[in-house]
């Protein structure tokens, strides 16, 4: 091979590495959101509130990092805010047994208003917060020095996302808790007969959902190092779509997140040159509709998802 071919080969390799790196970075918030939604829905509670949880958590990260100067306290605050939002969703849907979809929509509307309100009250701006600290890169031997991909392995919340995907799969499919959570999502009456506390398990699923989605919010704010109005920008709904395309399985959902991330990365790279940008934009939504219609393998949601569990009506 002559030197020129080698140079071309190397630059193509770097181009590909850059594409992969960008795809992964775009997929990170989707992955947190999709894992979060999966916990909730596997327990039988529809969670379309990832969008709102992202906003609450991103703002919490920003506030904590702003007032304490510590990015990791920001992450902690984001997880707390996500869990608190999850608790609100659980209170409305599990304790009061009100409609799960409406509760999610209400929370999403609340988040837009609440974050703007706080933004104005604290930062006196209707569009963005002050600049805050981001997470310091981790220096991991070998991986950090990979050409093109190194920065990816240095970003803490990217690595945490990978860990969360593996953890989610393990928790749902390899632990007694996961089995119990799935059973109250499939058949709460049967689960209750076996002595499981349906409400408590559903609370656990929704709270876990909020905490994991909260990490997604922390990613958004820490990556940008500030909070901007409506910065979730529909990502919560893409996460929901990824969960469906991944058929309520963490690994499948993670792959769907990468697919959606790749479409977006292509969009940025091609700038409409080969395919109009708008069509790449539509991809996640259209793929989700095709999956729901059974065109790409049937997706079966947990059987009891969306149905409030009323112990009194089943005696």
């Amino acid at each position, binding site marked *: 091979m002559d030197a020129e071919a080698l140079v071309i080969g190397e630059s193509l390799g770097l181009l590909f590495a850059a594409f992969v790196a960008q795809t992964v970075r775009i997929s990170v918030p989707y992955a947190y959101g999709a894992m979060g939604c999966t916990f909730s829905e596997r327990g039988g509670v*529809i969670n*379309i509130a990832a969008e709102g949880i992202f906003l609450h958590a991103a703002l919490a990260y920003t506030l904590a990092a702003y007032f304490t100067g510590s990015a990791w306290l920001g992450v902690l605050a984001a997880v707390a805010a996500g869990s608190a939002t999850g608790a*609100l969703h659980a209170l*409305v849907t599990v304790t*009061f*047994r*009100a*409609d799960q*979809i*409406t*509760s999610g*929509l*209400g*929370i999403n*509307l*609340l988040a*837009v*208003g*609440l974050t*703007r*309100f706080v933004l*104005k*009250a604290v930062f006196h701006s*209707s569009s963005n917060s002050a600049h805050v600290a981001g997470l310091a890169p981790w220096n991991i031997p070998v991986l950090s020095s990979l050409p093109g991909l190194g920065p990816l392995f240095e970003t803490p919340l990217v690595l945490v996302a990978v860990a969360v995907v593996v953890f989610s799969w393990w928790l749902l499919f390899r632990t007694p808790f996961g089995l119990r959570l799935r059973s109250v999502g499939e058949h709460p009456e049967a689960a209750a007969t076996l002595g499981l506390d349906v409400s408590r398990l559903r609370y656990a699923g929704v709270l876990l959902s909020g905490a994991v989605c909260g990490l997604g919010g922390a990613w958004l704010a820490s990556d940008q190092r500030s909070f901007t109005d409506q910065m979730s920008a*529909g990502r919560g*709904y893409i996460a*929901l*779509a990824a969960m*469906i395309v991944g058929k309520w399985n963490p690994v499948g959902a993670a792959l769907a997140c990468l697919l959606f991330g790749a479409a977006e990365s292509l969009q940025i790279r091609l700038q409409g040159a080969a395919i*109009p940008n*708008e*069509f790449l*934009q*539509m991809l*996640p*939504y*259209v793929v*989700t*509709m095709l999956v*729901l*219609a*059974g065109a790409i393998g049937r997706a079966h*949601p947990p059987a009891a998802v969306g149905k409030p569990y009323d112990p009194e009506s089943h005696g």
Partner: protein
Amino acid sequence: MKRWIGPLVPPLIAVFAALLVGAGFILTVGQDPIAVYGAMASGVFGSAYGWGQVLFKATPLVFSGLAVVLGFRAGLFNIGAEGQAMMGSFVMGVTGAWLAPRLPGIAVMGVASAAGIATGAAYAAIPGVLKARFGAHEVINTIMLNFVAAALINYFGHAAFVHETVHTPELPPAAMLTRLGAWWPPLQGSPVNLSLGLAALACVVVGLLLWRTPFGYELRATGMNPGAAEYGGTRVPAVWVKTMALSGALSALVGVNFVLGYKGYFESGFTSGVGFLGIAVALLGRTHPIGIVLAAFFFGALSQGGLVINSLVPKELVDILQAIVILMAIVSHETVERWMRKRS
């Protein structure tokens, strides 16, 4: 208890609870809740202009509220009123702008509305067909289609929008609905227009359709128990598709108020949540046309109220109030129902 008092209890609890939570937020920014709410009420209802603004803001909410109600009554949750309103209004704007130099104003309005309504209906029929044919859940599909609508409008907007804007060409005044201010001068300055009458008409038509026609009976039967309706001879999948189409048609009427009654053009992003607020209106209005009118008026007043108090409290207080009303409406509805069941 009188028959009409019962249904009023949960919405009133919801509104009261929201105002209470809102008072907490007002206190956090160092203001007096009573003074802020007072300023809101007098600022909104203290002038004919304020009333006009409330009615103008309530008009699209009646349309999207009715769209959601129709779905609810058939057991369908249409979260796609937003996208359907966008698609319908876009086609309304494009058709109107193309016809304006070719036809008299009244014909432009008629054809543009018809084209927009048909588009809204067709767009909403997609999730209806997907549910009827493949059993795909309409909630997810309508959410997805909201985003698809935005992308489609971006794409076709390249050709349809006036250069370097995100709106279609403006219609001449002759092709626009009369503003009520032209008849009653105190309303001048407010864009409230004849669409308000259309909204009232839509309420009556939806009421008659639901309770006075065979299709309305089938629709409600499907909503109460699809299995039983099917057994009783109703073709449930057909009801789903037709209901979604009608719901989309109602959503598209949002465009009549904005495109033909206010700006004279379609503008990207003008719907700004009208479809989602339609859900709030439907819930607070207890899925009844009369309730829709009251709830739309309430939310219209609230959003006008936000502008009035912006100097005292961030106007986003109103968004928070709206969200709490939604959450409290479903909670109080569920709780009151359970309490009534227990008592009987």
